[in-house]
């Protein structure tokens, strides 16, 4: 490994490998959200530890992963064409505050035309110190015919109790390009999280977003905006969330189907063991399109305060928009648990298997990354039962 250097002002050189700046508790926290700090299973790595970007040089052809500040210095066109173009600065107080920052932190991932990055590329937004405000701005560009799998881990150190995390993410997916973004969140109990995200998908492009929340923050409100602007573009959203006592999670997702033959699927899966869980989603059909939104919640011992509110929405402006929605909230029925017990399972084993089944039900092609995270949620949720 090369000699390491800290660049607290964020102007770190991507040539430096600073991963061994991380102590074992850091790497453990990062591993929790799928960010690997050793091995060769990633095409590129960028970790923002509080305000310090740590970047491993990547030699994957066609891929560039940089701290956003470095990228803005290096590429003039970034600010002109992409920066603050998918999310307006005046969207709300959060975006206004992000736009007013002097220093810009975050990551920039760029896959050039036709490049297919086989291994996942990873970025971590990591809060290692208690009670800080981390404001980030990320830009992802996947050019025409290119492909990228991005693993984004947002996590707090085990000793971090409170803090504020605000993130603007802008993503641009070119013609026949594909972006799979798997975001795993694992927060301290009193952290407030406001992601603001905007994505454009051009003709034939495909965006897949998987959001997994293991330990919820105190407050998360997220309503990513996706615009399918080219013919045949598609988007697929999945959120899998564990809600606990004292948390308020509001997960939305607006998808605009602006061009013919666009398709969208939005699925929220929530296990609520307390706190408030809002599952939303709005599909807007502006062309000949096909779209479905599906919210499913499972209540486990929520007490008097906990609830799930599901509001899947569809709005059609075009006669050939085929749109549908469904929502269901249920509990684990005793006869189901006992049925599995009659096969020799312990009650807890039965409950775990059922939660796992609920979270993964009807969702095809979960990768092993997601399988692992869902197994963790199952484990965590199971603690409240039995």
């Amino acid at each position, binding site marked *: 490994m090369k000699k390491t250097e800290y660049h607290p002002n964020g102007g770190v050189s991507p040539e430096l490998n600073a991963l061994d700046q991380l102590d074992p508790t850091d790497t453990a926290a990062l591993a929790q959200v799928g960010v690997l700090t050793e091995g060769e299973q990633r095409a590129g790595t960028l970790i923002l530890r509080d305000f310090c970007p740590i970047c491993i040089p990547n030699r994957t052809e066609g891929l560039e992963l940089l701290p956003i500040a470095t990228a803005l210095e290096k590429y003039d066109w970034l600010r002109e064409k992409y920066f603050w173009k998918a999310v307006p600065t005046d969207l709300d107080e959060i975006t206004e505050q992000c736009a007013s920052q002097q220093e810009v932190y975050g990551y920039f991932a760029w896959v050039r035309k036709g490049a297919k990055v086989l291994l996942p590329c990873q970025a971590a937004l990591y809060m290692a110190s208690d009670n800080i405000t981390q404001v980030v701005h990320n830009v992802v560009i996947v050019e025409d015919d290119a492909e990228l799998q991005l693993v984004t881990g947002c996590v707090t150190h085990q000793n971090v109790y409170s803090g504020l995390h605000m993130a603007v993410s802008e993503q641009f997916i070119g013609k026949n390009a594909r972006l799979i973004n798997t975001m795993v969140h694992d927060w301290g109990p009193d952290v407030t999280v406001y992601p603001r995200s905007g994505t454009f998908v051009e003709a034939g492009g495909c965006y897949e977003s998987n959001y997994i929340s293991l330990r919820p923050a105190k407050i998360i409100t997220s309503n990513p905006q996706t615009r399918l602007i080219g013919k045949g573009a598609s988007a697929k959203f999945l959120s899998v969330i564990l809600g606990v006592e004292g948390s308020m999670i509001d997960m939305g997702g607006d998808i605009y189907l602006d061009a013919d033959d666009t398709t969208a699927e939005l699925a929220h899966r929530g296990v609520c063991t307390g706190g408030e869980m809002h599952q939303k989603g709005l599909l807007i059909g502006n062309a000949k399109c096909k779209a479905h939104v599906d919210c499913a919640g499972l209540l486990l011992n929520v007490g008097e305060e906990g609830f799930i509110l599901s509001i899947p929405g569809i709005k059609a402006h075009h006669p050939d928009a085929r749109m549908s929605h469904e929502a269901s909230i249920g509990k684990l029925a005793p006869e189901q648990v006992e049925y599995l*017990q009659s*096969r*020799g*399972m312990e*009650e807890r084993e039965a409950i775990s298997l059922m939660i*796992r*089944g609920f979270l993964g039900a*009807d969702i095809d092609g979960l990768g092993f990354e997601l399988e692992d995270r869902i197994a963790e949620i199952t484990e965590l949720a199971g603690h409240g039962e039995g």
Partner: protein
Amino acid sequence: MKENNNVLEIKDLCVYAGQKELLHNLNLTIPAGEVHALFGPNGSGKTTLMMAIMGFSRYQVKSGQILLAGKDITELDITERARWGIGIAQQLPPAIPGVKLQQVLDYVTAANHQQVDNVGQVAKAADMERFLNRDINGNLSGGEIRRAELLQLLAMQPMFSMMDEPDSGVDLEALKVVGELVNMLFSDDPVHPARRKAGLIITHSGNILNYVHVDKAHVMFERQIGCTGNPAIILDTISKYGYAECTQCLQEGV
């Protein structure tokens, strides 16, 4: 002490669901190596009896005892009873979204590799392979549910197996397969087909008895076993005179 040769012994069992008495001072004994049939009109308590033997929480034992191979299991939970060797094939098992039949089979056979192969072969022979990776009991026909339930029992190899109407909602062709699976479950030693495991089969129509031999039959009414005897004679009587004849029997205290 005298060796206990009974696989199942039920003594003066009273079972309630809430305030309602569903079984009243019920007695039943099934010796090792015997399979018994259980007849009775709707609502007489047949399914309740099976569910209570398995230990489902809806069915509260107020008094009496359930012994499995001499061991008192009355206070054990369902998991423990299953592990001691009781298996059940329900008539209307619950569907569980996202839980696959294969996952349950994997769980049951985890400690026994030989059994994994056996179950695989049975699944193939019973044309069940396509159901293995579907939700358990979800969108299955009557015959498919019977086969799925029996496949799980075959994987578990219980000492004592119970089946609730394995012949209901099953067409003749499927019934033959169900019959074969039941026989496989009770007689797992092809060299000695008469050496059987013990079991209890609820049947309304008696159709399953065309494929599976039973040693004895019991008739339930009004929350008790009313009559016990030769299965063919009892079935014959019920089909000729209905359950009224058996009620007569009970009233006369025969």
